[in-house]
Structure formats: C-alpha cells, structure tokens
C-alpha cells in the first residue's frame, strides 16, 4: 500500500522534472517541424506579399520539376558518398593504429580530437587559406613534390572545388569516426583474439575474423549517423565556396537556405525540406537494411 502510493507520486514528480525539457523540445524542436510541414502546403513568397496562402500540392509539384533542386541533391549525394567512404576507411585505419600501445598514445589521441572540436565555419576559412591558388600551402606542397607543375585554382574549378570541400570534411570527421570505432574495438572480448591465435592465425586474419565482424554494429551506427549528418552539410560549404563555382558545390542545405532567405520563397523552401527528408530517409534505410541483415548473420 505504502509502496504503491510512493510510486504514484514518483510518477508525478518524474513529470515535474521532465517539464522544462519537454517544453523546450516541444516549442523549439517539434513545433518547427510541424510548422515546416504546414508551410510546405502554402504559398508564401514575394508573389503573395509574404502572406501564406493554401496551395495544396503546388510546392511539391514544383520541387519535383525543379532541375536545380535535383542537382543539389545529386551534389549532396556525391559529397556524402565520397566523403563518408573515405572517412570510414581512414577512421578504421586510425582506430586500428591507436588501439595499439605505443609511446605518446595519449598525445596522439588528443591531437585526433582537434579536428572534431574545431568550429566548422572557422575551419572552413583555414582551409580556404590552405587551398588559396596563389599563396596556399597546398599548391606549394604539390609543386615542390612535383605532383603538379602549375598552381591549381582549387576553389575556382567545379571538380577541384568539390575535391577541396570533401578533403576538408574528411579531415574534420575521420578522427570522429575513429573515436566511435575505437570505443567499439575496446568492447571486443580479448578471449576471441586468444582463441583465434591458438589456431595460429596472423594479424590480418584476426582483423577479418574477429575485429571487423565484431565492429560491424559500431560501423553501421557511425555510418548512418555520418550519412544523415553530411546530408545536411551547410557551414563548410557556405564558408568555403558558398555553393560555387556555378552551382558545383551547392548542397541541398545551401539551396534551401537561399530559397528561404535570398529568394524569400518560404513555402517552397519548406517543401524542399520535406522532400529532402524522404530522400534521406530512403537512402538511410537502403543502407541500414543490408547492414542489419549482415549483422544478424
């Protein structure tokens, strides 16, 4: 009897403690999502004097016929695919390395956190300087090592600008990938390695037979998270190239941002967010399902 009364008030007290958190999330996270959904069925732009007018599926029909939108989706996909693959490979390599014991391991790990901790927007400026065509160290290094003979205008060409942005992104996020994978590696039971060593397996085999399969859940999680994150990439591109040259590095987040604040086409921007959401969700599931099946086997 006493205990049940206690639990009742536990419930109440629990809700009291949750209230501020719930209020914040409802007003600042849930409401905006619903607002975007609502806005996507309205036309609100300079044509309507910025008043919202219900227009049904008009915005969605526009999005589906907007080549510019799909180009930005394509750019985002290319960026995500290349950047995340390289990050995964590098992160895995770094993690394998830092999982070993060697002198100065703490220092190396601290160094590896620096890219993750640096503000992306500020970092983007640092990279703009590195990739500067006249005085940048990147050209300088490549010319000195004889890889190129003339300075490349990295941020001025369509492919090279993409390369530069991906390079900067990989630099920033590969160490993060490493941290997640390192945590996963340290949870692998030692006896698995001991068992396989008794069988006389060497280190390559212990990687393919123990480390990789045991690490798959961590890899899946990190991969999904990074894909979702890089689909929304904004800061790095905004500062480094602003989406240019042309529209060559314009990711969908940049195009959406411009639709809202430059073209003042609010309903249309909202519809773009919703369509992007479904594309991204589909992509994530397409990657998640095969990996999940693999993990279960």
């Amino acid at each position: 009897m006493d205990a049940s009364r206690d639990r009742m008030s536990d419930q109440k007290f629990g809700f009291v403690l949750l209230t501020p958190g719930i209020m914040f999330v409802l007003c600042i996270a849930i409401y905006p999502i619903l607002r975007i959904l609502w806005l996507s069925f309205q036309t609100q732009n300079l044509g309507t004097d910025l008043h919202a007018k219900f227009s049904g599926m008009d915005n969605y029909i526009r999005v589906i016929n907007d080549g510019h939108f799909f180009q930005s989706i394509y750019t985002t996909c290319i960026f995500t695919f290349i950047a995340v693959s390289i990050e995964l490979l590098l992160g895995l390599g770094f993690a394998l390395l830092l999982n070993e014991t060697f002198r100065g391991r703490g220092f190396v790990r601290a160094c590896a956190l620096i890219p993750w901790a640096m503000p992306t927007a500020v970092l983007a400026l640092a990279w703009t300087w590195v990739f500067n065509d006249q005085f940048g160290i990147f050209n300088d290094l490549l010319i000195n090592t004889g890889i190129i003979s003339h300075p490349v205008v990295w941020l001025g060409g369509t492919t090279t600008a993409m390369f530069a942005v991906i390079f900067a992104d990989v630099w920033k996020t590969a160490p993060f990938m490493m941290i997640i994978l390192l945590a996963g590696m340290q949870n692998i039971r030692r006896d698995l390695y001991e068992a396989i060593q008794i069988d006389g397996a060497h280190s390559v085999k212990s990687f393919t037979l123990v480390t990789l399969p045991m690490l798959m859940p961590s890899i899946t999680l990190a991969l999904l998270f990074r894909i979702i994150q890089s689909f929304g990439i904004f800061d790095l591109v905004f500062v480094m190239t602003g989406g240019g040259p042309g529209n060559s590095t314009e990711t969908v987040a940049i195009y959406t941002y411009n639709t809202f604040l430059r073209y003042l086409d609010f309903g249309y921007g909202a519809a773009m967010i919703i369509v992007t959401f479904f594309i991204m969700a589909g992509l994530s599931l397409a990657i998640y399902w095969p990996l999940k099946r693999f993990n279960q086997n």
Partner: protein
Amino acid sequence: MTTKIPTGKQKTVHSSRIWLQVLAWLVACWCIAPFVWQIITSLKTPSEIISIPATLVPKHPNLSYYSALFARKPFARYFLNSLFISTVSTLLCLLFSSMAAYSFARLRVRGARWMSLMLVLISLFPGIVFFFPLYEMVRVTGTANNPIALIIPYVTFNLPFAILILTSFFRTLSVEIEEAAKVDGFSRLQILFKIVMPLSAPALATTGILVFIGCWNEFLLSLTFMTRDSSKTITAGIASLSGANTLELPWGPIAAAVVISTLPLVVLVAVFQRRIIQGLSAGGVKG
C-alpha cells in the same frame, strides 16, 4: 578505461613497432597540420605571408595581427558573446537534462521509452530544418540580436544528447545512497541536487564539455539571428570577415582569428582528452 587488446602482434618484430610509432605520429601531424599552419601564418609579416615558396618558420615572428585583431572592437565582442552564450546554454542544458535524466533513470515515468526514442530522432535532424520557423519566432518576439535567441535553441538541441549520457550514468549510481538520504529526511529535490548531482560531477563535466563545444561551434542560427555586428558569435563573426572577393581577404588577421577562436577548444581537448573520448563513446554519436 583503456584495455589493451592483443591483435596477434604480440611477438612483435622490432621494426614493425617502429613503423607503428611513425604512423601514429603521422596521424597526429595530419590532425593538427591545418591548425598549426594557421598559427604559423598568423605570426608572419604581411610580406612573408604572400612570399612564394611559403616559409615553414616565420622569419620575424610577431604578434601584430593579434593586437590588430583585438584593437578592432567587434572581434573581442564576438569572443565574449560566444563565451557568454555557450556558458549560459551549457549550464541551463546541464540543469534541465539532469532533471530529465533523473526522471528517466529513477522514477518510472510512463512513456519514458517513447520519449527517449523521440529525443534520438530529433537529434538527427539537421539545423536547416529548424532555422526558418525559429527565425519567424525570433522576429515575432523581437529577440533578434539578443543572446536569448541563441541560448534557447542551443539548450534544446543539446538536450537529447545530454539526457542520454546522464541517464545512463545515473543508472550506474547505487540506489542505496539515495534511500539512506530519504531516511535522513532529504526531500526528492534535495536528493537530486545535493546527492545525485555532486556524485555525478565527472559525468556532468564530460557532458558539459561536449555541450559547450557544440554551442561554441554553432553557425547557422548565429549567422541568421545575429545581424548586428556587436551581437555576433565568433563563428558567424569570423565567417563575415571574408569579403566577396577571396583574393583580397585579410589572411593575416583571419589566421589570428582562427587561432584565437579555436584556442579555448584546443585547451579543453588537451586537458579533458580522456573524458571527451569517454563521453563521445557513451553518448554513441554526436557531431
């Protein structure tokens, strides 16, 4: 917690050990190279910055860019704005997330599982989804250029991650202490604030560092809501240093600005390296 894992390299050949060491140092160099390059650039003289080939060690190292940067008023303001907004957001976030996490960990609240799932989902949405509705709210409430316009969203968007870390930490605390405190006549609120939170100082510190870094680095909302120069945070402020013409960018001052704005984070990382790695691993993932 570092557990050594034998990976079959135990009967190590001497040379492979050296290779490992060399590779590890290469990784470290790769990670700090762009930052170090900014330090080097910021110490050069204007003529040396644009000299070709670039020099690796400044010939006449000087701090003139730094003093110039702080002489220009807005920059010190950017820094202080960031410091203020990030600190307040972190403290508020820790307070609210501890309350929520305690509720999840100890008090059997109905729908707790559903709510934490919701939190995870929300934390996956990128900022671009939220920025426009929030922008409307900022305009309606007239809070543009007011720190509150950033503090409220920063608290909100760091809540999910903070709640998840703290919930799992609170679950590891033994219930006996709390029950003993109850017997001693502590109220529930006192138990949370005087027993549980002090015991959780390490977890709170870890979470706080991660939240602080997140707030310090935020760009999109700051760029959109803080239009007046004196209200900008350091990320949006520095990005606005870049003019339309990339060729005429003031690279020296920018390099100094990059170094100054990153320095607090480098110090945090250097001091709390172990804690940060633990926090990131415990929280699963956070960008």
